[in-house]
């Protein structure tokens, strides 16, 4: 939450806690430690930001929860239950890329847990400069800054951490159980619902920060995808048949990230790997791994518990350890 909107966040939080009942201007002014006139000004600002707030002279203020809630930093902040992830939210109606903005903020010293959210991206990106479709009003595009204090050679552990958190969150809102495609694509019925791009700023022996860029297809309809993506992309809406509140989804995601980050710090990589494997459904399947100038085809044996490298047994009988590349899972019967 940006400091200048702290009062709006607190008002929305209090009105939400009051459910559908009215809260007096006096009570709000006491809770916030500001005058009733100031409360009125903050209410006006919250209305401008899309919140439907009713006012009755004798009773006070009430949040009309039946109206569509806006998707912005205040709405997300007022629903947060985390200690540090998302406590500093930078929300933008449009950005080139949330990862680029988070990187910029990271270099300026933004605290751990700082989260960038954009309603749309003009240059949303995936691995190796690929495009991530980022229309407005439908999905979640967020990048979180982590400062784990680990050497760079362990930083890829965070790839699996973010995959577990996203998969677990998608599971909460989807009628279909998600699976992960190595290492961190999240699929519903074999189609991509979320993607993660991890970028790091480091010295040879110290990570300055890692940016976890997460894109989730939430309310987008499959017909809105470009033709080339339709066979391989899906959204929560396509599976559940209903709209998901993006702010609620975001809050659950941040809680899950924080939970697994604490597990990682206290107990190390193994519990993450175990949770990740719970979503991994490629063992025993035929996979094709395309990397820069090679193609490996074989049966997926699983992953190396030490670092999460993909293990593929080729037809020649060799066991290949894959640390980067695109994995394609052959469907049964093909």
């Amino acid at each position, binding site marked *: 939450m940006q400091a200048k909107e702290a009062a709006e966040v607190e008002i929305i939080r209090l009105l939400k806690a009051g459910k559908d009942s009215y809260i007096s201007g006096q009570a709000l002014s006491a809770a916030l430690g500001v005058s009733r006139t100031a409360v009125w000004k903050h209410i006006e600002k919250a209305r401008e930001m899309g919140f439907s707030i009713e006012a009755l002279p004798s009773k006070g203020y009430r949040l009309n929860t039946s109206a569509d809630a806006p998707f912005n930093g205040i709405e997300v902040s007022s629903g947060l239950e985390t200690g540090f992830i998302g406590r500093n939210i930078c929300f933008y109606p449009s950005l080139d890329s949330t990862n680029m903005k988070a990187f910029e903020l990271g270099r300026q010293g933004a605290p751990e847990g700082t989260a960038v959210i954009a309603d749309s991206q003009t240059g949303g990106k995936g*691995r*190796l*400069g*690929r495009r991530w479709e980022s229309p407005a009003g439908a999905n979640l595009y967020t990048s979180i800054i982590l400062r784990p204090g680990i*050497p*760079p*050679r362990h*930083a*890829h552990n*965070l*790839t*699996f951490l973010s995959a577990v958190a996203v998969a677990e969150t998608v599971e909460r809102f989807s009628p279909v159980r998600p699976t992960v495609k190595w*290492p*961190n694509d999240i699929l519903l019925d074999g189609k991509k619902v979320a993607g*993660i*791009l*991890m*970028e*790091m*700023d*480091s*010295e*040879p*022996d110290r990570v300055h920060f*890692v940016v976890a860029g997460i894109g989730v297809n939430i309310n987008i309809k499959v017909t809105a995808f470009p033709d080339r993506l339709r066979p391989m992309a899906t959204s929560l809406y396509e599976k559940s048949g209903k709209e998901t509140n993006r702010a609620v989804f975001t809050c659950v995601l941040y809680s899950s990230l924080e939970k697994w980050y604490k597990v990682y710090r206290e107990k190390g990589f193994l519990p993450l790997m175990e949770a990740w494997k719970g979503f991994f459904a490629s063992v025993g399947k035929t996979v094709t791994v395309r*990397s*820069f*100038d090679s193609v490996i085809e074989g049966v997926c044996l699983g992953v190396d518990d030490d*670092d*999460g*490298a993909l293990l593929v047994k080729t037809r020649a009988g*060799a*066991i290949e*350890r894959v*640390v*980067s*590349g695109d994995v394609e899972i052959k469907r049964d019967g093909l």
Partner: protein
Amino acid sequence: MDIKDIKAIYKFLRETDIVEFEVEGADGKLRLKRGTAAGALQQPVFEAPSPAPAPGSAQEIKKEEAEKVKAENIKVVTSPMVGTFYRSPSPEASSFVELGSIVKSGQTLCIIEAMKLMNEVECEFNGKVVQILVDNGQPVEYGEPLFHVEVSR
């Protein structure tokens, strides 16, 4: 025996319980030993068969190069992690640096990718790229030399 053979043996041993392994050929002797504390296979140690390598042999050239590096104030930029080496941010984009590029402290030299985590490796001093030691898209080990950069005085 070349690095490919050593890598193949290394990979094979990772899958087994063998703790010590030695092979001798015409061109040298290779000994691999598994660490006891961490249980991990140590870096392969390559031993030359004769006490002093003949002038002009691979080892001798390597040694000469190492001395040259030291003498000319050339720093070696190494890989901070196991991964894949990329010289550009995307296949279509131009390389971050070329041979002879003048680089500033903080400038990105390359990207190392591991498990979809992209690490931009930055130069930590002002200088000139005098050698690029790895081809685009190739796997690199932790600590593997990537660039030689001549430091500006």
